[in-house]
């Protein structure tokens, strides 16, 4: 116990020391001298070799961070421990690092290599956490490293790592939005992932990075629907919300027809507003009419049939209404509200009512949404009316919302019970709530004509309530009600006139005065008397009351000038000297208007019409009306204002877009990642079936198959386990799949061992040649994977059983490769036409093997990359960032004449240049004065009438490191003449623009030259072997591979060569194969090697690989070449 007390002491101690400061300055956590001292001993502890001391120090630091204190000065001491063996220390260091890296970017870079090493760790947990932390470090300079790490993790064999990759995508995107295109590619790839673990996370990434790319969803739509129920709850919410938007763009309005079939004014408006939400009344009607006629036309042509995919979505989300997670239930509810046919929406009511039992915050949000829904679909909640009754213990905000719902639900049949309920509420102690109840009564009265009188009487009774607030609120509501039928209620008006003696609440007084003024003809005797009283107290009234007194006076003057003339003038005189300018203005204005003088113009004739015009009764509307133009359940809906990042819920399309986009070709469906081949048959049946749906119906046959295969796999994997027995009894097969994945994990370990062996065995095989063994594997697993891929959607089950059976002997092997195989398949599928006979494919696969290297046999992408990669990683990051060149001296520059058509860019337009136009192109000639400069040919054309003199460059504004070699000054350029000069610019291997001034004898023009990345290099000559050797050294981070589809015109070697050399200043490297084109060059400034290879395949598919020491250059070059080849 002594030890534990020591532990506690430490805690107590730190907080004791901390507390006083905390009191002084809780927000800033400023550093006092005592803090410095403490930090010193923390530093010592962090530097010690004892893990326990380090841990304690880290714990104290984390406690500081938690209290919002600044611990950034400990950064150097902490970051040293990033590689600490102790996992808890490590985790706490991560916490620290993520918090402070942004502030201490340079030091944070020291930790990067640790994470890079972690990314290659055999333990998936470490890989994942390395990626998590790496991607959380907000340091712009490591963006390329993050990008590569994400790309690699996205094809990791562990679904957990892939999930982490999906999580990292939005992090990178928020750090550098320029990466969007690359990230979308990764998202696209991960969307195709079939594991439930990944699905939620990748959709989340999709929503943050590219929610507009709805086209990426098509192919994955059905899969997402089917996986949905097994996705973890948070993912479910994100997916459901996204699918709601998707469905709104892809399917037709299921209520389209019903709205036409049903007649009746109210209903029509009700449905009409379904289609268009926030248009103005007039417009609205017209539009509705238009839509209606259009729709009728459609209906006449063909009746509405729900798209099966639309149905699939509704069917697969419905069970989630039973989730324990309120957010999931709400997500499904809004999906049904926005997407389901009217008749089916009702199912959500029950679930929403259930949520009301939850915490009050949940209630609050649910009630807001129910309030909106209940306006449109009142019938849905009517059976649950009593669940919205209010308890005295409810918080006020909940009470008010319940009241809102009750009011929305009121109709002729239930109004009497609701009013009785309201009566009890009026007695409540909670006055805000009482006020809300009175307003609710007013709304019920306006909406339901039958009870108007009852309500009015009730409200009049409230006028004698002791509580002034209640009376005031009643007056305001009564005023609104009376406006509807004032004739019948002159006694109420009289009654209210009496109240002016007692009621002090300004709003109520103003309301009474307005009423009397407005209906002074109904109470001709009382009205002047009221004015008399008011004139007496005028100076003491509130402003709104004063204004109404003036109004009353004016109205009385117009109707009964005999009695009130003097009073009116008195009031107006008082008002004339009021402190408030509004009141002074009003008085002046009214005097001009009503008192006829010679100056007063034509208006005074119409004064009566102006003041006593019939005013329309106010419409008492729910504040929740039309809130459903916001997607329900969203923050924007709750606030009734568009929140940042809100995705508008689109309107239904007029005609359904092509549904075939969602058809998934057999080849594109990727089998699940962790599977044993011995279970394929079962999987084949199950593939599309989620966890829950896997039982009854086919339970008989499936079950037997399951249990058999399960035991088989059990023995095979050697885990003589508890699980193997389980299958025989259970009727559900999910258990097996579960145990399967478990076994898979066990196998993982085994696999790795085997992999190592295999790699050893295969090392001697030269990588350039296609390996027979792996080629075979491919063939086998290809066959094997076929039936699996087939799944339920398969239309072409071309596979014959005998084949797959024959390969069963090698099952174990192929099973291991199946995962990698899927990756490969992913890479290749895009290029393969689905109808191709299998044999051909295999051939192609073989060829491709040289590209894929040993990919198959190691969890890390490629073992052949490992060596250079490790070198790379161990070398400090700083040198890497400097782009140290290894090859500068080896290769001599050779001039290769560029392919003729140089692209010219405009430097100065004729008009801005006042007749002088300047164009430039990258001549691709070596710049002789300085070989590290890019030669830029500049052509001046003088189209002005006078000659231009002394053209020269001045005042170059360059990024650090960049240099410029000006062209010699041109003394005279006669009108109509053209002249070319060459200047050299050292761009420092970056695409930053070189800004300078171009001067003539009269003017200066600011111009800038920005090089395409392809111009930053010069061609070098290489042999095939040299190329391979260099390429082998530039792997891993330095290699970027991209699949692409060649444009029709550029299929064929010649076209490819031409396009690549146009895009980049490279020279061709001879190559034995006509399917592959290789190019080499080096960057002009640093001489870093740039290697490009394009491998073409059938049907225009191609793979582009760029190896370059400078990752930024490589990335940009890939983009440019990709563009050149595909456009």
């Amino acid at each position, binding site marked *: 116990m002594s030890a534990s007390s020591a532990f506690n002491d430490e805690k107590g101690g730190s907080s004791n020391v901390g507390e006083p400061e905390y009191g002084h300055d809780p927000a800033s956590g400023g550093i006092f001298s005592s803090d410095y001292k403490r930090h010193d001993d923390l530093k010592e502890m962090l530097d010690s070799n004892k893990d326990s001391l380090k841990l304690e120090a880290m714990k104290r630091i984390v406690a500081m961070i938690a209290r919002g204190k600044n611990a950034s000065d400990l950064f150097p001491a902490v970051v040293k421990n990033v590689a600490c063996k102790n996992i808890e220390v490590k985790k*706490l260091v991560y*916490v620290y690092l993520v918090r402070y890296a942004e502030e201490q970017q340079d030091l944070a870079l020291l930790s990067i290599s640790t994470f890079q090493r972690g990314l290659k760790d055999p333990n998936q*947990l470490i890989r994942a956490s390395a990626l998590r932390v790496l991607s959380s470090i907000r340091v712009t300079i490591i963006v390329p490293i993050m990008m590569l790490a994400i790309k690699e993790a996205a094809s990791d064999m562990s679904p957990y790592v892939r999930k982490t990759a999906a*999580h990292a995508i939005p992090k990178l995107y928020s750090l550098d939005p320029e990466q969007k295109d690359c990230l979308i590619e990764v998202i696209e790839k991960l969307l195709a992932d079939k594991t439930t673990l990944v699905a939620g996370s990748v959709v*989340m990434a999709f929503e943050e990075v590219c929610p507009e790319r709805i086209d990426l969803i098509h192919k994955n739509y059905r899969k997402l629907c089917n996986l949905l129920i097994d996705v973890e709850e948070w993912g479910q919410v994100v997916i459901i919300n996204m699918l709601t938007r998707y469905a709104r763009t892809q399917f037709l309005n299921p209520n389209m027809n019903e709205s036409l079939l049903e007649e009746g004014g109210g209903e029509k408006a009700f449905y009409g507003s379904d289609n268009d939400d926030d248009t103005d009344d007039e417009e609205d009607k017209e539009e509705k009419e238009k839509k209606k006629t259009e729709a009728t036309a459609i209906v006449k042509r063909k009746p509405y049939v729900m798209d099966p995919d639309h149905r699939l979505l509704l069917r697969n989300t419905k069970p989630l209404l039973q989730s324990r997670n309120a*957010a999931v239930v709400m997500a499904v509810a809004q999906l049904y509200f926005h997407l389901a046919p009217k008749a089916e929406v009702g199912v959500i009511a029950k679930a929403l009512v259930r949520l009301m039992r939850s915490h009050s915050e949940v209630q609050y949000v649910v009630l807001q949404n129910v309030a909106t829904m209940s306006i449109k679909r009142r019938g849905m909640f009517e059976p649950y009316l009593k669940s919205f009754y209010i*308890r005295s213990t409810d918080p*006020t905000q909940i009470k008010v919302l319940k009241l809102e719902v009750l009011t929305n639900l009121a109709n002729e049949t239930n109004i009497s019970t609701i009013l009785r309920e309201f009566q009890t509420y009026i007695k409540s102690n909670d006055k805000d709530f009482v006020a809300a109840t009175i307003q609710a009564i007013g709304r019920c009265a306006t909406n339901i004509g039958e009870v108007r009188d009852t309500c009015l009487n009730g409200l009049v009774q409230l006028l004698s309530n002791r509580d002034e607030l209640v009376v005031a609120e009643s007056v305001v509501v009564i005023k609104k009600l009376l406006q509807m039928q004032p004739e019948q209620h002159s006694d109420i008006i009289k009654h209210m006139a009496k109240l002016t003696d007692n009621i002090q609440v300004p709003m109520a007084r103003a309301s009474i005065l307005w009423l009397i003024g407005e209906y002074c003809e109904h109470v001709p005797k009382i009205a002047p008397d009221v004015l008399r009283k008011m004139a007496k107290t005028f100076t003491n009234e509130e402003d709104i009351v004063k204004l109404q007194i003036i109004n009353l006076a004016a109205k009385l003057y117009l109707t009964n000038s005999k009695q009130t003339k003097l009073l009116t003038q008195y009031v107006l005189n008082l008002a004339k000297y009021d402190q408030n300018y509004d009141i002074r203005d009003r008085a002046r204005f009214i005097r001009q208007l009503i008192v006829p003088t010679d100056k007063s113009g034509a208006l005074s004739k119409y004064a009566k019409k102006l003041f006593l015009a019939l005013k329309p009764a106010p419409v008492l509307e729910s504040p929740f009306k039309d809130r459903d133009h916001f997607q329900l359940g969203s923050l924007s809906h709750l606030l009734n204002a568009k*929140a940042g990042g809100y995705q508008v819920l689109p309107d239904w399309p007029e005609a359904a877009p092509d549904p075939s986009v969602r058809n998934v070709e057999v080849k594109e469906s990727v089998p699940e990642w962790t599977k044993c081949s011995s279970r394929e048959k079962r999987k084949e049946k199950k593939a599309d079936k989620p966890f829950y749906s896997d039982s009854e119906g086919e339970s008989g046959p499936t079950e037997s198959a399951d249990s058999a295969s399960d035991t088989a796999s059990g023995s095979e994997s050697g885990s003589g386990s508890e699980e193997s027995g389980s299958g025989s009894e259970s009727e559900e097969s999910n258990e097996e799949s579960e145990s399967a994945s478990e076994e898979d994990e066990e196998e993982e370990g085994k696999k790795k061992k085997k992999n190592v062996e295999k790699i050893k065995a295969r090392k001697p095989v030269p990588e350039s040649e296609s390996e027979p063994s792996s080629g075979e594997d491919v063939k086998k697993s290809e066959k094997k994977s076929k039936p699996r891929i087939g799944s339920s959607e398969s239309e072409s089950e071309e596979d014959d059983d005998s084949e797959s059976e024959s390969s069963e002997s090698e099952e174990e092997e192929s099973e291991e490769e199946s995962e990698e195989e899927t990756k490969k398949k992913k890479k290749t599928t895009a290029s393969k036409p689905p109808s191709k006979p299998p044999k051909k494919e295999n051939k192609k696969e073989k060829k491709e093997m040289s590209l894929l290297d040993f990919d198959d046999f190691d969890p890390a992408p490629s073992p052949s990359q490992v060596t250079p990669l490790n070198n790379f990683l161990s070398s400090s990051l700083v040198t890497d960032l400097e782009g140290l060149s290894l090859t500068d001296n080896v290769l001599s520059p050779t001039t290769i004449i560029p392919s003729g058509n140089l692209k010219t860019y405009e430097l100065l337009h004729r008009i801005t240049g006042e007749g002088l136009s300047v164009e430039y192109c990258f001549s691709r000639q070596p710049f002789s004065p300085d070989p590290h400069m890019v030669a830029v040919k500049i052509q001046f054309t003088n189209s002005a009438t006078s000659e231009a003199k002394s053209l020269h460059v001045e005042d170059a504004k360059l990024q650090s490191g960049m240099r410029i070699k000006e062209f010699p000054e041109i003394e005279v350029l006669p009108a109509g003449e053209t002249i070319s000069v060459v200047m050299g610019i050292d761009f420092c291997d970056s695409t930053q623009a070189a800004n300078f001034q171009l001067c003539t004898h009269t003017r200066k023009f600011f111009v800038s030259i920005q090089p395409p990345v392809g111009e930053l290099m010069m061609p070098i000559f290489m042999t095939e072997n040299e190329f391979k050797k260099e390429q082998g050294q530039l792997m891993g981070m330095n290699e970027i591979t991209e699949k692409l589809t060649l444009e029709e015109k550029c299929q064929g070697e010649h076209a490819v060569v031409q396009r690549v050399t146009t895009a980049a200043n490279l020279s061709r490297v001879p190559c034995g194969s006509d399917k592959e084109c290789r190019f080499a060059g080096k960057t002009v400034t640093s001489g870093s090697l740039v290697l490009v290879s394009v491998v073409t395949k059938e049907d225009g598919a191609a793979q582009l690989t760029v190896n370059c020491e400078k990752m930024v250059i490589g990335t940009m070059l890939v983009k440019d070449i990709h563009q050149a080849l595909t456009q």
Partner: protein
Amino acid sequence: MQLPAKMIHSLFLVNSSGDIFLEKHWKSVVSRSVCDYFFEAQERASEPENVPPVIPTPHHYLISVLRHRIYFVAVIQSEVPPLFVIEFLHRVVDTFQDYFGVCTEAAIKDNVVVVYELLEEMLDNGFPLATESNILKELIKPPTILRTVVNTITGSTNVGEQLPTGQLSVVPWRRTGVKYTNNEAYFDVVEEIDAIIDKSGSTITAEIQGVIDACVKLTGMPDLTLSFMNPRLLDDVSFHPCVRFKRWEAERILSFIPPDGNFRLLSYHVSCQNLVAIPVYVKHNITFREGSSQGRFELTLGPKQTMGKGLEAVLISSQLPRGVLNTNLNPSQGTYNFDPVTKLLSWDVGKINPQKLPSLKGSMSLQAGASKPDENPTINIQFKIQQSALSGLKVNRLDMYGEKYKPFKGIKYMTKAGKFQVRT
């Protein structure tokens, strides 16, 4: 350009006196001053629970939940379903409670490192990562006294070294390699009755909310099925993710691989009003006379339709009108208490003996000169009925597949009052 930064950006924990005692940021740091908007709203609200759960500020939105008198304030920057955040925050509180036994400011401060580690695992970049308690407990071991001692001596840690296997499997809620010497599975069927009874004693609304809480300590990977005698009673059900939904739909049988330890298997709702038997009645006579400074207070309780089971732990509470200065009441049993400041009357009745009904009678003194209160107080009743589920729900049998041993099984029923109010 505004970058999308969805989900939870930062979390602040605010205690009842308005101090921020813990903060955690997932993206860049958001200044504490953002909480000023929250404090403003807090000041405006009359009661702590009236602080709006969603508060917009110029650059952020604050979504908060109040549990155990601590506000958990999440800062978000852009559109996100509010329930998503609220539900997550409640999950965080549940986890803290699970780990530390209580979720108080002191407990959180004492375990600040574990809290940080937990939050780190639960949220990645503001998006929920691992919220399943079984997984979290594998990642970060809950602090116990013994472990604290051991850790201090050996320098070992609370952090698990392996990725929880559950996270990768189809049963993410269950950890693997579970071993027990005593294999037991206990289920508690707990029903709460919510009702509003009007002045005359007739039921305005009544519904039953039930839950089945389980404590399962079974070795290996057991597959359980639980069937009911009368499953049709269950009107609306929500399940723990482990329950196979289709099987329930088709056969009305609960089939599941349970998580290890305590969990809520399902919650259900029985709303058909006629079926709900109200187990207690209240005779009351609370009157204030105009002009008099005295009020009469009489309350008698009695059991009704309890199927022979006794009413226990009965507790009456009522918020008396503001005008009441003090009370002078005599309980026939139990103790009563009136707080003259909050005007809260509470009467701890205990057990109800049907032969001798408990009553509370006496007078209330009112503020002199004040007018008669508008409203009679509402009476809130709490009670328990052991060994009976009010709806009549009965478990038929519990079977285990997939493992060979014989587990010990137990089922308990209980009825409680939920929000049970009598208007007078």
